[in-house]
């Protein structure tokens, strides 16, 4: 366990410059975009010159970019993410309100694609080149090639508009007054379609990776040795081949969940789920710099945490990993 602890310490120290780069980078990017928060607001409220100047001052947008960046970093040092301009509320409140939705959606979608993808990958990889292998490989690739919003729309047309089995949008029934188990069930019903549309897309990644890894392992000597020992085919597939092919999938899971944490703007918009992806899109549209950086920071922290978990899982799965790092 000592090994894991050192790993964690090293990673946490490494995270500080990463976060700093993320903050400064996204600040500069938003700075480079034409128009600021007041311009975005002026579109809807009209506004005259005096009022626009007054708003710039009130929202702290009148200084030089450098002064604003240092002020922001200073407040960040005090763990203050600032005020969202578009929502007139503390950034942390706004982000934390949306975070559970994204975590739930993305967690479920990742779990679905990982579980189903690797299971089908085992099915495909247990007999490489067989009909079921070809069928699964091509089928999953076809799903991967389909744009997410299109898959979502098709699912909506079938299951919501035609069959009326599932609700179309939102996280839960509006003002339903449900609580406890009833509410959980309600949320689950609402999540089926978005999770399916996201999960099916990434299924192919895991499936193909699992399959390719297994095809590789089949050629190894220990598989031959297992056969010679008279082990059942099932045992060879599950214990020896699949287990050894699993490692790259864990790496993939880390990368994938990092990508998914930013939320999916398309799926969240289509299914009207108030998540981080949509919030980020709104923040960019409103040129709400504190909010956008807040979202990016929270996601970055989560990505770092997930990657740390993946590394720990890796170390548990493969004793060779991290040994060198721990000695350094």
């Amino acid at each position, binding site marked *: 366990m000592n090994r894991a602890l050192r790993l964690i310490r090293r990673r946490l120290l490494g995270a500080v410059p990463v976060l700093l780069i993320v903050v400064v980078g996204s600040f500069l990017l938003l700075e480079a975009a034409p128009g600021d928060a007041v*311009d975005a607001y002026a579109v809807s409220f009209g506004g005259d010159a005096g009022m626009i100047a007054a708003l710039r001052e009130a929202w702290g947008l009148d200084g030089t970019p450098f002064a604003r960046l240092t002020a922001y970093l200073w407040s960040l040092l005090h763990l203050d993410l600032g005020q969202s301009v578009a929502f007139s509320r503390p950034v942390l409140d706004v982000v934390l309100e949306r975070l559970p939705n994204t975590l739930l959606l993305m967690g479920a979608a990742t779990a679905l694609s990982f579980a189903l993808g690797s299971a089908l990958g085992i099915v495909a990889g247990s007999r490489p080149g067989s009909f079921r292998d070809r069928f699964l490989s091509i089928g999953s690739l076809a799903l991967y090639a389909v744009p997410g919003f299109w898959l979502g729309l098709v699912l909506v047309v079938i299951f919501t508009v035609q069959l009326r089995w599932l609700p179309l949008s939102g996280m839960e029934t509006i003002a339903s007054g449900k609580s406890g188990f009833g509410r959980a069930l309600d949320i689950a019903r609402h999540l089926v379609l978005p999770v399916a549309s996201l999960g099916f897309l990434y299924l192919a990644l895991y499936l193909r990776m699992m399959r390719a890894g297994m095809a590789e392992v089949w050629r190894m000597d220990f598989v031959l040795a297992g056969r010679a020992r008279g082990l059942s085919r099932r045992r060879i597939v599950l214990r020896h081949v699949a287990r050894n092919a699993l490692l790259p999938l864990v790496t993939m899971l880390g990368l994938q969940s990092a990508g998914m944490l930013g939320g999916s703007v398309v799926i969240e918009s289509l299914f009207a789920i108030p998540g981080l992806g949509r919030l980020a899109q709104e923040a960019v549209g409103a040129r709400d710099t504190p909010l956008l950086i807040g979202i990016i920071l929270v996601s970055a922290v989560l990505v770092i945490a997930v990657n740390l978990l993946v590394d720990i899982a890796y170390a548990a799965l493969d004793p060779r990993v991290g040994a060198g790092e721990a000695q350094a």
Partner: protein
Amino acid sequence: MSDFRISRRGVLAGAAMLLASTAMPSFVFAQEPKKGGRLVVAADSEPRNLNPAIVASNGVFFVSSKVVEPLAEASFEGEDGLSPRLATSWEGSEDGKSVTFKLREGVTWHDGKPFTSADVAFSALQVWKPLQNLGRVVFKDLEAVETPDEHTAVFRFAKPTPFQLIKNALPALTAVLPKHVYDGSDIAANPANNAPVGTGPFTFAEHKAGEYYRLARNEAYWGENQPLLDEIIYRVLPDRAAAAGALEAEEVDLAAFSAVPLADLDRISKVPGIEVVTKGYEALTYQLIVEINHRRKELADLKVRQAIAHAIDKEFVVKTIFLGHAETATGPVPKNDKQFYTADVPGYAFDVAKANALLDEAGYPKGADGNRFALKLLPAPYFNETKQFGAYLRQALAEVGITAELVNNDSAAHQKAVYTDHAFDLAVAPPVFRGDPAISTTILVQSGAPDGVPFSNQGGYKNADIDALIAKAAETLDAEARTKLYYEFQQKVAEDLPLINVADWGFITVARDTVKNVSNNPRWAVSNWADTWVEK
């Protein structure tokens, strides 16, 4: 999408419906309005500020007009096109320097306090005049509001102000705020701006950001037997394709402001139980215009502007971009405005040869590559139609040898580029005609607009004749004489082309047929829905 819907199941269901419809001739019953029920409405955005007295825009009114009421609402039948709300009558003085409003008695705010003339005085002087985007223009000469008793408010103007203008401004500009909630606070930052308190038929119940707004019935509403609905839910559906799906799946009862894309209307109008309504936007006409930067040498030449006007096929724009749901425009007042519109203006028929000849005459011959000069074209991103028209205009200009470089920006960047930095040659904009040219139309061509003000003359155009006309109309009290001046205004604008009016459009409402009393006034989507009900 449409291909996908042709399933055997769909065809069978459709055939059954057809059979049923021929077998049972439909009788139209005079239906008794029923009380109760929930109306679920699709909303595509969440305004940053929900206070209609500060931000007089349709996005804000869509939700807040049910909560906060104006002095009067637009009406198809009423005198002067108005029906009373918080004011029961209005009277202008001979000299144009005062208007007397009699206010409704027995009205209470949602928090139980009585509504009085003090609220009207406070709203007019502290909010409409100094803070409101449109009120700053219309009420600029408002000096005082006298309140001789609790139910009379007398507006005093420093300069004669046309009563006609005040009447036309009542629906959109006069949302009344409760003085006791706002007085002594920073009005622009008051929390009630996001949870409005009003006198309307519905109270603001809750807003879950990214999910919905909920309005609840105001049991103490002054309207007899109103409102009929128990609650209104605005579901935030940012994806437009999802709005159509939500209607079909009966998760949403109504989508206003063309939330269902025009391209989907044909299909969705055939779905049983869904109605497509084009009425109810008569006083909310949007105008598709080409804004011109007159600082650019070529565009300062009238012949070039005329050539551009001749190069645009307005009929094609209406048919192809708006799918017929629009009218071609002749000038700065839309055809559907009975008060001010005149057809007697110089016209610019679609004529490529003439456009080419005009450009030759202006001294911009085609170069070896067939091009005369290049322009930067910035279509406003607010509507699909403005973006599509930008693409069309680029092609139309290419036909006459003008190369247009299309620059697509998001809202904030467009606002800065066009209205602050003037970094454009041509721009496409969708201003709103609000029932009187003086409210938000004349500022499109009047000189002297400060930088940064959207939907104002930022093209550097200056025409002393037009400025003088606008100024004269602003102080002409006689309605007929004032209307005449605006005829002249339309002629001058069409003649000199400070901007090019292409088309005028209203929006489309798609609703389930169980929703009753839809679109029964010319600003229906932004009116109070006190008489709207749902059949169960």
